[in-house]
């Protein structure tokens, strides 16, 4: 019994793992779920900043593992999302500070207390990634529509499979509809065709994300943001809802030629 542990991972750095963890976490908490977000990027902690909780970090993941505190003591409650708690990473340590077994123990303890445990994985394919993934029930693989990011996602999916983590879904982040329409960016279909896993979210590029990240106010809390809506939709799909896809292109002028091309594509 207990909650579901979800690892958010990507292989490549900078594609939006931490932003996704924070926003999907808050979106789930807004659906009245009890959520813990775990920063597994030991030594390069970020999730506290994105959530605006950097000044409240007292204990961290490594302290729990080393017995300096209990799990409950290290958890920080979010200021606005009352159902959301953060378990921060240690900043002054490295990935070796925690073993896989210890990570599994912490995650399973959190699963007893929460409906969802979201684990923000570090970039890379080394121990840090393995520790983050090992305690998870399902994986969300984040990629951007770039050839390099898709290749790293492909590698990560292969590694997840070999770890026996066969339940995984894809989030395509930072889609720029106008570039896709012009043919200058891989489109969603290209990415799914290559990675051949289930799609759970498409998030458009949104300059507001940078502002929200710096402010520590996740974009899902902004009602007018398309990216925020996309993250809410991901949370709803995690909860099993059947949510229609956001029409990212509908307001773009396609012209007659584009329209004919679309018809042709069907």
């Amino acid at each position, binding site marked *: 019994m207990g909650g579901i542990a979800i690892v958010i991972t990507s292989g490549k750095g900078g594609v939006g793992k931490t932003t996704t963890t924070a926003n999907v976490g808050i979106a789930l908490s807004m659906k009245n779920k009890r959520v813990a977000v775990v920063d597994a990027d030991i030594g390069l902690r970020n999730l506290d900043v994105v959530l605006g909780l950097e000044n409240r970090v007292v204990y961290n993941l490594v302290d729990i593992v080393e017995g300096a505190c209990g799990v409950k003591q290290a958890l920080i409650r979010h200021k606005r999302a009352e159902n959301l708690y953060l378990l921060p990473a240690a900043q002054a340590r490295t990935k070796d500070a925690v073993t896989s077994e210890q990570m599994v123990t912490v995650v399973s303890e959190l699963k007893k207390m929460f409906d969802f445990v979201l684990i923000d994985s570090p970039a890379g394919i080394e121990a840090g990634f393995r520790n983050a993934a090992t305690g998870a029930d399902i994986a969300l693989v984040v990629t951007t529509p770039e050839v390099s990011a898709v290749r790293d996602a492909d590698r990560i999916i292969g590694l997840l*499979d070999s770890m026996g983590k066969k339940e995984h879904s894809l989030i395509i982040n930072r889609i720029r509809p106008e570039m896709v329409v012009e043919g200058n960016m891989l489109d969603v279909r290209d990415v799914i065709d290559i*990675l*051949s896993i289930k799609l759970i979210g498409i998030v458009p590029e949104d300059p507001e994300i940078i502002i929200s990240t710096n402010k520590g106010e996740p974009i899902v809390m902004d009602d007018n943001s398309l990216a925020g809506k996309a993250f809410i939709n991901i949370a709803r799909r995690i909860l099993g809802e059947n949510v229609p896809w956001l029409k990212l292109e509908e307001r773009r002028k396609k012209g007659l030629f584009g329209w004919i091309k679309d018809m042709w594509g069907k």
Partner: protein
Amino acid sequence: MEREVKIKGIKGGIVTGIPEDIPWKIALSMLRKKLDNEFFTNSSIILDIGNREISRKEITTLLELLDALSVGLKGFVSLDERSYLLLSKYGFSVSRSAEGLQSGAESEYEMWKRVEGTIRSGQKIESESNILIVGDVNPDGEVSASGSIVVLGALRGIARAGNKSKDAFIAAIRLFPQYVTIGKYWSDFSKEKEKLQEKPAIIFIEEESMVLRYL
């Protein structure tokens, strides 16, 4: 040769020797006793018939028996000229020695290694036989076979075929590889790349060069 069905394992196969001087019917019942064991189910054997002259009917009864036991047949070892020709005529792999059969040099009907699922970036599939991939081979995924490679999906990564044979081929439902090799031949189709099409294709060696043909 001894009056007993003998089984021995050699590198990569099981060789079953059939005595030459006992009637075929008795030889088959001896073979049945030896092979009627879970251990051999779904395995493939090489049948050494030595100097025996085998007939068409005898081949049929043998195939029926092996079929009933769910045992596959990799090929024959035959020293008798007539049997050799007859068996090759029927499309079996035949050799003078079990090792000859192993090398794959004379045999057309080799084993296929079947792999299901996507071969992803960083993954490598290798086999001493032919390889059948039921899925895609993604960029930086690699398939390497001594024989031929068939991809029932998109080949976007690397395929190395025919490490031992120039007759090997590479086929895929969609072919956009990083590069392919067949024996010593190599190509990334950089000249053709603009023209690569979303169609099933086969690559083989013809007149000392690599040929890509759409099917």
